């Protein structure tokens, strides 16, 4: 087998050309040239599970977990090797040609894709392990793991792509697999609708991706990313065609990214996608699928960064990102379904990443992607563990679970503080870097790139977003784990196969922030910045040291959010317990009103936020698209009325006459409609003979 692989590899190496052109970077040796295994193994395994899964001792899970273990291991080894000796190399095998443009399959081994291999592999491995416990007893257990493996494989095809064609193939594979997975419990109509909604929303955005990919490829004359990058590197004067189309192409690509990364207003599919099993939500909203859009913008970063190309798209990106991060965060406040809270929180964090990309902070955006992958997967898996235990998604059926499921509680708490950006957990470091990038954007960008005011505005929105994040996470933790248990099912700690992945992810969420401690470590910057297209490092900036002011602001916002959350929801649990047990006259009304402090908070803080704004957001979410459609319908209807009026006055007679003629003609033709196929066949043959005879005579 090894011999076969080596031989195959030699053949592929013989056909490979081009690649990363920076001399300072290594080609990665055999580790990189064998990296084609990363996307291929899960794709093969997905089919193997379909065909042989049921015969395996663990019904296909063993194949899936084996594959993910391989991915995690390979990703880790590749990452370590990359850290010690940076790699940048593309491998391509030609499959077909359209004119001069080669269609290729290949694999890219550079900082960006290695980081993604690592994230998908490691998070995927833990989620797959967890999924065995979660999906135990499911009637489509094997099928679930087949589509789950396909999902991970599709994502790896996407991130390994060195050209647009393969990127689109991977992109669509992820889309299809997500459709399969969201609709896993398709017996309920709601779930299959959610799957279709996710698929269709993504399809709408995919049109943007296609248009952008076609425009860029055609103007460069190659599907390869490396050729596109070279064209950009040579500058607008040397690539006039690309420069001419760059703005619209960049915008179109960003629309594609908005779909997969669920940016406002194409985010509507993501909360509904919670209909899938929880491990799916964890993988989909952490390591795969939603990161694809961020990855795409990262991959195309020079296009957005170099002056004369799509740099003006950046202010659109940063605006959309800022809108997403704030508006969706507010919605999370009013959700009762714990998975929906996390879904909206994911949207908010994706907004941070996208806005960072828009601010030109390549490293910061990807760093947040990296840390978010760990703590969000952890939160989803924790929520899944809770749901598994209480058999309900609603926080109103939970409460007090801290005592029943301590491991889930502690890991979920770590995920929450990491998400809220509390020092020293991972989220703090990445969020701080993003805030710094906004400040930088506020100070340094020209009007075409968003302007100084926009950067500053986004910075304050982001800080407000940090406050909201801490606020709803506190609420979630309190309602779920503190107070009295309100559900019916008997809560219990989940099995080890589910808690160990939680612990693994918690370790990642706690520690991975330190790898990019500004001024102290810059491991992550080195990882993703490895691919030295000339001048690439000049395009983005990286904070040299921790910006104390911003860090304190961020922490203060998070602290305020936590404090308010605790004051509002924490005591609430206590008083409810007291209310049921001990009713002392005089004291009771005060307790019931929570010393009237809650009312003050409620009227002063919650209602203005939760009431009008959040409700408006919720309403906007559900209704605006409808409204647009209805508006278009109304417009058409009134247009129709105008036409009808015109009709009545003038053309009535003519219309009626033509109607009568058509009616009479139809009446005659109706005689032909006998429903007897052979009579139709006679007519078809006769008509063919007449037509061909006519042609023969004519020529």
């Amino acid at each position, binding site marked *: 087998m090894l011999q076969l692989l080596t031989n195959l590899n030699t053949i592929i190496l013989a056909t490979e050309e081009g690649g990363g052109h920076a001399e300072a970077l290594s080609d990665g040796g055999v580790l990189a040239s064998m990296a084609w295994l990363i996307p291929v193994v899960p794709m093969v395994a997905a089919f193997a599970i379909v065909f042989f899964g049921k015969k395996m001792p663990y019904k296909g899970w063993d194949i899936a977990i084996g594959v993910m273990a391989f991915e995690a291991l390979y990703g880790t080894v590749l990452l370590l090797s990359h850290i010690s000796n940076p790699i940048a190399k593309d491998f391509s095998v030609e499959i077909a040609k359209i004119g001069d443009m080669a269609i290729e399959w290949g694999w890219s081994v550079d900082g960006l894709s290695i980081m993604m291999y690592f994230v998908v592999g490691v998070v995927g491995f833990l989620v797959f392990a967890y999924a065995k416990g979660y999906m135990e007893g499911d009637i489509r257990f094997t099928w679930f793991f087949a589509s789950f493996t396909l999902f991970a494989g599709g994502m790896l095809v996407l991130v390994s792509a060195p050209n647009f064609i393969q990127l689109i193939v991977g992109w669509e594979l992820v889309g299809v697999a997500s459709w399969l997975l969201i609709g896993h419990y398709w017996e309920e109509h709601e779930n299959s609708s959610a799957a279709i909604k996710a698929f269709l929303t993504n399809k709408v955005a995919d049109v943007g991706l296609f248009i952008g990919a076609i425009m860029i490829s055609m103007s460069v004359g190659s599907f390869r990313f490396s050729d596109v990058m070279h064209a950009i590197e040579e500058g607008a004067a040397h690539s006039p065609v690309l420069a001419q189309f760059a703005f619209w192409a960049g915008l179109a690509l960003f629309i594609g990214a908005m779909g997969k990364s669920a940016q406002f207003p194409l985010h509507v599919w993501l909360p509904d996608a919670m209909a899938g099993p929880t491990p799916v939500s964890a993988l989909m909203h952490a390591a795969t699928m939603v990161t694809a859009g961020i990855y795409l913008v990262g991959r195309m970063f020079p296009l957005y960064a170099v002056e004369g190309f799509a740099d003006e798209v950046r202010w659109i990106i940063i605006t959309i990102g800022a809108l997403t991060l704030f508006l969706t965060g507010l919605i999370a406040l009013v959700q009762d379904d714990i998975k929906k809270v996390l879904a909206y929180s994911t949207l908010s964090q994706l907004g941070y990443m996208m806005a960072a990309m828009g601010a030109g902070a390549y490293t910061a955006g990807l760093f947040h992607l990296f840390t978010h992958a760990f703590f969000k997967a952890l939160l989803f898996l924790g929520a899944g563990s809770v749901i598994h235990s209480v058999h309900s998604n609603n926080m109103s059926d939970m409460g007090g679970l801290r005592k029943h499921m301590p491991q889930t509680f502690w890991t979920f708490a770590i995920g929450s503080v990491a998400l809220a950006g509390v020092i020293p957990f991972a989220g703090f470091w990445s969020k701080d870097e993003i805030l710094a990038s906004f400040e930088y954007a506020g100070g340094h960008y020209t009007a075409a790139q968003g302007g100084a005011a926009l950067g500053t505005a986004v910075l304050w929105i982001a800080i407000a977003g940090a406050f909201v994040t801490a606020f709803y996470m506190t609420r979630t933790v309190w309602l779920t784990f503190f107070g009295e248990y309100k559900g019916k099912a008997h809560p219990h700690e989940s099995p080890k196969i589910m808690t160990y992945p939680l612990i693994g992810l918690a370790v990642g969420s706690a520690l991975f922030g330190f790898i990019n401690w500004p001024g102290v470590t810059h491991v992550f910057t080195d990882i993703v910045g490895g691919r030295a297209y000339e001048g690439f490092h000049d395009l983005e900036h990286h904070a040299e040291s921790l910006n104390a002011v911003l860090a304190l602001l961020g922490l203060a916002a998070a602290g305020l959010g936590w404090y308010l959350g605790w004051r509002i929801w924490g005591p609430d649990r206590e008083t409810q317990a007291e209310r049921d047990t001990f009713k002392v006259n005089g004291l009771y009304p005060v307790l019931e009103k929570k010393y009237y402090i809650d009312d003050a908070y409620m009227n002063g803080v919650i209602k203005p936020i939760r009431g009008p704004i959040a409700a408006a957001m919720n309403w906007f979410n559900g209704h605006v698209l409808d409204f647009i459609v209805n508006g278009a319908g109304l417009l058409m209807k009134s247009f129709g009325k105008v036409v009808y009026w015109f009709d009545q006055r003038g053309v009535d007679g003519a219309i009626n006459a033509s109607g009568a003629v058509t009616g009479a003609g139809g009446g005659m033709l109706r005689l032909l409609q006998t429903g007897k196929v052979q009579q139709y066949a006679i007519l078809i043959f006769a008509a063919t*003979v007449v037509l061909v005879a006519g042609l*023969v005579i004519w020529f």
Partner: protein
Amino acid sequence: MTDWITSPENWAFVLIAVPMVFAAFRAVTSPNVVHSVLFLVVALAASAALFLLLGAEFVAWTVVLVYIGAIIVLFLFGIMITRAPLGVETELSHSNQTKLGAAIVSGALFALITVTTIQGFGDAEVTASPTRTVEIGESIFQRFVIPFEVVSVVLLAALIGGIVLARRDPVEGDEAERSAMGSAQSANLTAEGGEA
């Protein structure tokens, strides 16, 4: 024309073609279903003989094996299963009016093709030379390997499709252990089958 008549190949052609047309005619007009099928056998055997005459040996024997050996048997099965009347049956074809229309259309078709062919090719000669099976094999597995694979997929699809269409659904109750996945489908089919 004299050349044509004196050539022994053409004698063979006439000896094959006349029974072939007759058999084909009887196959589409015979009032007896089984006779129809047997006449089809004759017509197909004649076409195989024609292929031999043209030197296409492999195709000729394929026709004999696949058509005469397999497809005809399938037809006979079809006749038995659908309980078509086995004796002479006047109701097998449509009324004379339809027959007249069909005869006009197919006659016109024949006339059209004949005229076009004679105009187009006149008396272009065909010289038969045997095609060796190895040539067919090389061509099919090199030049035409993808169509070949596609055809095998088509056959597989037809196989599965035939089974799915024709199989009679089991009586309800046997299927209690069936998973929920198949139940909707089977319920659907049973409802249809239940009318029969």
